[in-house]
């Protein structure tokens, strides 16, 4: 359409505005045709459902743009092709989430029983016992890590936003927090391992070490999210408080932080969810104790992620032992996912309930 006609510009007619178009249900029709044809082929060749879906997708990606190209022209065809591809990426991205959730529920739910939640693994060989020790370990270690990280993280963010304001110290701190965000979790574990090796001798096993390693991972997340939230608090609010003669520290604790509280709580909750599933550092320092231990300062603790790892990898003398260990691993995975997703949901609810409208 719209050829470039420079010479007769004064006598141009309006080009038709009605490009020939596919009907609104065109894509649906193309989909039906594509997957229908693919279904026939799959039946004839005896393919499984996955093969049928993939073949149908390929057919769809070809059929719709080809049809569009014939009717609407090349530009619309490319647009439709890209639209199909872009939405396909989303569907593909969803597959692992669905597959993981499904598998964890399918294989984890059979492990659930009263014994599973009320007993530990002390004295158990292969079949039987529960994961109580690991649930307690995860709760204790994560709780201590939270108690360390949240105050430190919030205060550091307060320093960056309220006191530092771009001075040298705050620029260095911002940079270091960036570095910390990128620390691989296993390196945090090595740090705790190296620290307590110096203090206690080789191969230390100490639950508090796990909390310290998790704190290294958690603090930068808390700092980042709190910083974002504090920056959203408008300066007029601060100046309004100053103008009433309120000292700075009370302005921060009574005005700034309460205003940003929703976001801060959301960020902290997400950080807890993030580290509750961490495995590598706990594997190195907290170890794989088989019984309940409530004392973080003495001996190691089992945790859910480490339990999953060790039960899945340790092998056994008899096939039924291996099967029981695997079932235990999946059961623990389901418990862990429920905890982590619960925390995420909580964070969303808190965020939606409190947080100031951020525009988008």
């Amino acid at each position, binding site marked *: 359409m*719209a050829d470039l006609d*420079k010479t007769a510009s004064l006598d141009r007619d309006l080009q038709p*505005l*009605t490009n020939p178009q596919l009907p609104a249900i065109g894509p649906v029709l193309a989909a039906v045709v594509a997957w229908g044809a693919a279904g026939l082929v799959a039946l004839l060749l005896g393919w499984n459902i996955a093969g049928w879906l993939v073949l149908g997708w390929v057919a769809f990606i070809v059929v719709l743009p080809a049809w569009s190209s014939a009717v609407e022209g090349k530009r619309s065809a490319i647009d439709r092709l890209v639209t199909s591809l872009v939405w396909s990426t989303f569907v593909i991205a969803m597959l692992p989430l669905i597959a993981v959730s499904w598998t964890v529920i399918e294989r984890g739910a059979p492990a659930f029983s009263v014994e599973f939640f009320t007993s530990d693994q002390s004295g158990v060989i292969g079949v039987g016992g529960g994961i109580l020790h690991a649930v307690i370990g995860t709760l204790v270690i994560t709780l201590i890590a939270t108690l360390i990280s949240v105050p430190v993280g919030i205060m550091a963010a307060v320093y960056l936003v309220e006191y530092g304001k771009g001075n040298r110290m705050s620029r260095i701190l911002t940079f270091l927090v960036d570095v910390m965000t990128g620390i691989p979790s296993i390196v945090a574990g090595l740090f705790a391992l190296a620290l307590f090796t110096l203090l206690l001798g080789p191969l230390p096993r100490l639950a508090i070490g796990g909390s310290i390693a998790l704190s290294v991972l958690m603090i930068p997340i808390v700092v980042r999210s709190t910083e974002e939230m504090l920056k959203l608090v408008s300066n007029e609010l601060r100046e309004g408080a100053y103008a009433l003669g309120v000292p700075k520290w009370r302005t921060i604790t009574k005005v700034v932080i309460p205003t940003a509280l929703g976001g801060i709580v959301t960020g902290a909750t997400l950080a807890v969810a993030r580290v509750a599933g961490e495995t590598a550092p706990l594997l190195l320092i907290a170890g794989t104790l088989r019984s309940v231990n409530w004392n973080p300062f003495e001996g190691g603790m089992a945790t859910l992620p480490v339990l999953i790892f060790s039960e899945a990898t340790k092998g056994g003398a008899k096939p039924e032992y291996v099967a029981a260990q695997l079932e235990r691993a999946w059961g623990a995975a389901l418990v862990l996912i429920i905890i982590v997703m619960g925390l995420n949901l909580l964070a969303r609810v808190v965020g939606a309930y409190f947080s100031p409208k951020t525009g988008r």
Partner: protein
Amino acid sequence: MAKSIDVSDLNIYYGNFLAVEGVNMTIKARQVTAFIGPSGCGKSTVLRTLNRMHEVIPGARVEGKVVVDGQSLYDPTVDPVAVRRQIGMVFQRPNPFPTMSIYDNVLAGNKLNAKRMKRAEADDIVESSLKGANLWNEVKDRLDRPGMGLSGGQQQRLCIARAIAVRPQVLLMDEPCSALDPISTAAIEDLIHELKSEYTIVIVTHNMQQAARVSDETGFFNLKATGEPGHLVEFNPTKKMFSNPDNEATEAYISGRFG
């Protein structure tokens, strides 16, 4: 021929909110039509419905008819992309593509059609469009430089060149001078005078002197009351509008008694 536009019973919604109600008017071919009125009364909204640009805002929809040369813009078979090709638009803030040179900016619309253009043909379009936008003499030695390097007024004329390079029928201008200094504004106003021999031009402006200077016909928009939808109060030749308007509200606005 440049085309006239008939608007009848146009209602514009954002979601469930009725923004503009019951607009009827005929925009004449090869004339400059100005939309004036207080902020928030829907002038720009109406302008954007004339080339279906309002659809870019989520939730926006219209009722009623906009007919260009016998073709209804809101017919279900109409392709908005085809509409926008033939009804060009210039925005409030100059918006040349930051990563493109002056040369590529002018050709941005033409390149979409992706027919292989010969270099000479492309050069011709660039030259004639830039001349049409009164920018050729200022930039002819630096066509390969980024468009963002120009002054605000030059950038806006570059955007006009870009819009006319695809040879549209109608040019819509949404407060094209509000971000410019007086000298650049004068240059754009001169340009509008020249362009109306070839294009139907609709311009939204906050500046009543500007409407009086550049336009042949003027539409005055106003809110019925606070919170009510905007509507077209009066549509008349500019001379009549500024000397002897039909409507009291128009006179009050023009003489500066409100708005």
